[in-house]
């Protein structure tokens, strides 16, 4: 019998250049490698989550993956009703024996970004643009701030929230305003809003830093790096484990140590970044991986 996997995405849907897309990439790779049966759904609203999870469980899928914290409470209920189905949830914890919880230490990755930003800044000011303020986005922000402080204690961080994940126009204006206030490296964790941040950087001749997926190509040379949240890897591994017959419930944390988060390859910017900056990033990376450097998540 073929293994069958289904995914319920978060309301951002496919095309978010963030974890939905990443999860889908992981699924696609797994399909290519293992030839599994699969199905997915892109809900438009939080209220739908429970019925989709339930329907997939009911339909007998071996693994049902819930993408995003929005599905936490829905999965809590459904995973109790279908104890023989295996579930996974990204970015949240549902403490049931048939649920694997995939958590990402965005703050750790953001810490590295902060180092890069602080050291690349010539003005002594860097910026952060968030989407809608929430605990997850705050993790990006505080990780970034700690990284900046660790590398260059005097560098100032300007923080703005756009109030939306889908307003690139506002993202651009926020970046311009931060730039006018001196920021010359701006990190965004704001979904589609961030496209505007990157455009502003390209136009204004300063640096932007992408998030979640590799956004370096969006403006070559302008996007210094992207903070990768490797949901694709996590999903692929999860399916691969399932195929091999050792699905493991419980909490799986993806951080620096297991390469679950990290920086992009910096294909277009590696030449611009001085050696000592990369060295500092590497130093922090190894320290965090070794547990010598602790990054707070709030």
């Amino acid at each position, binding site marked *: 019998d073929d293994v069958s996997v289904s995914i319920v995405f978060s309301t951002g*849907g496919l095309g978010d250049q963030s974890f939905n897309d990443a999860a889908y990439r992981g699924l696609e790779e797994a399909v290519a490698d293992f030839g599994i049966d699969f*199905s997915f*759904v*892109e*809900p*438009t*609203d*939080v*209220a*739908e989550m*429970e*019925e*989709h999870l*339930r*329907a*997939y469980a009911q339909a007998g899928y071996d693994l049902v993956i819930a993408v995003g*914290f*929005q599905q*936490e*409470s829905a999965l809590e*209920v459904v995973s109790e*009703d279908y104890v023989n189905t295996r579930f996974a949830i990204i*970015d*949240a*914890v549902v403490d049931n024996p048939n649920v694997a919880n995939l958590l990402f230490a965005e703050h750790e990755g953001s810490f590295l970004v902060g180092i890069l930003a602080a050291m690349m800044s010539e003005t002594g000011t860097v910026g952060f643009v968030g989407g*809608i*303020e*929430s*605990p*997850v986005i*705050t993790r990006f922000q505080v990780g970034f701030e700690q990284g900046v402080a660790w590398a260059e204690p005097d560098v100032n961080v300007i923080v703005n929230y756009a*109030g939306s994940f889908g307003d690139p126009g506002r993202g651009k204006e926020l970046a311009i305003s931060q730039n006018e206030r001196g920021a010359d490296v701006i990190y965004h964790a704001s979904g589609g809003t961030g496209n505007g941040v990157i455009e502003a950087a390209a136009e204004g001749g300063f640096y932007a830093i992408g998030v979640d997926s590799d956004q370096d190509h969006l403006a070559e040379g302008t996007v210094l790096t992207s903070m990768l949240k490797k949901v694709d890897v996590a999903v692929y591994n999860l399916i691969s484990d399932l195929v091999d017959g050792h699905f493991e419930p419980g909490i799986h944390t993806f951080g620096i140590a297991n390469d679950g988060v990290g920086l992009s390859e910096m294909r277009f910017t590696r030449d611009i970044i001085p050696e000592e900056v990369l060295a500092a990033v590497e130093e922090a990376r190894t320290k965090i991986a070794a547990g010598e450097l602790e990054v707070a998540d709030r």
Partner: protein
Amino acid sequence: MKWNLKNIEYTGILAPLLSVVLALLVGSVFILMTGSSPLEAYTVLFQQSLGSWDAFALTLQRATPLVFTGLAVAFAFRCGLFNIGAEGQLYMGGLAAVWVGLTFAGLPRFIHIPFAIAAAMLLAGIWGSIPGILKAKLGVHEVINTIMLNFIAYYLTDFLVIGPLHGGRAGPETDRVLETARLARLMPPSRVTTAIFIAIAAAIVVYFILFRTKLGYEIRAVGINPDGAQYGGINVSRNIILAMVISGSLAGLAGAEQVLGLHTRFIQRFSPDLGFMGIAVALLGRNHPFGVLLAALLFGALNAGGAAMDRMTDVPRELIVIIQALIIFFVAADQLIRGILKRRRRAA
């Protein structure tokens, strides 16, 4: 009690039905463009909304909040006010409900739930009263202020839900409200809660207020002819404010339903534009409470069936949105349908 069905102005069930059919026909063109089968898609759409009890339960669940927001918009319309702010009022209602739901431990169910609902209605009513007061006293157009208050409500609840009211979860949401504040599910696992009864009761109460009370008489008079109403000894300002308060509190019920029933918590920006859909529901229902019930049911079915269509077919979810829009178009433009029907009849 004599139902005043004349107000619904539906000459028959035929026209709306035909509208839906026509919308599906046009929608099938889009589906064919993606290479999927319209027949398969529509079979799912129907079966998963009305095809079984479970499906119908889902439809009911989706319809419930729309009944409230539809009634809210319709009520304001009856007083000549265009309440685009049901969305914001809904959030404020949800906010009050979740606060009461989280805070007052030890209350028995039969007190805790009404208390939470009342709080939702109160806060949402106050939120609705702001554009009402500004309109009545200063003549500021309610459309602007209701739009503005939507944004303010988003940001206010955004803040509270990750700040003072934030729960122990990863997401921007509160903890679940206390057991005693949760609306009971009628036929688990479906999430149809007792809110469905509140919705029906609300429609009846709104009908009653509008058409069977002195207050309704005055509110409608103000809506039709404020000068005439003033002449008739009706306090126009007071009725405008009151209508907005009631409208707001109805939208607040939608918030309470979502928070105490569906999600059992307040999730940041949980509403999928329920307030805005309420506008369409109200107008499709001809601003009559029973028309609103029917229109909400239609939308509920589209939502329920549409979600399943996304899951069970290859039709992308945008198409479902498009088909929903088409159905609204055709149902709204029922003159078109009537025209076709008339021509048929004449030809026959």
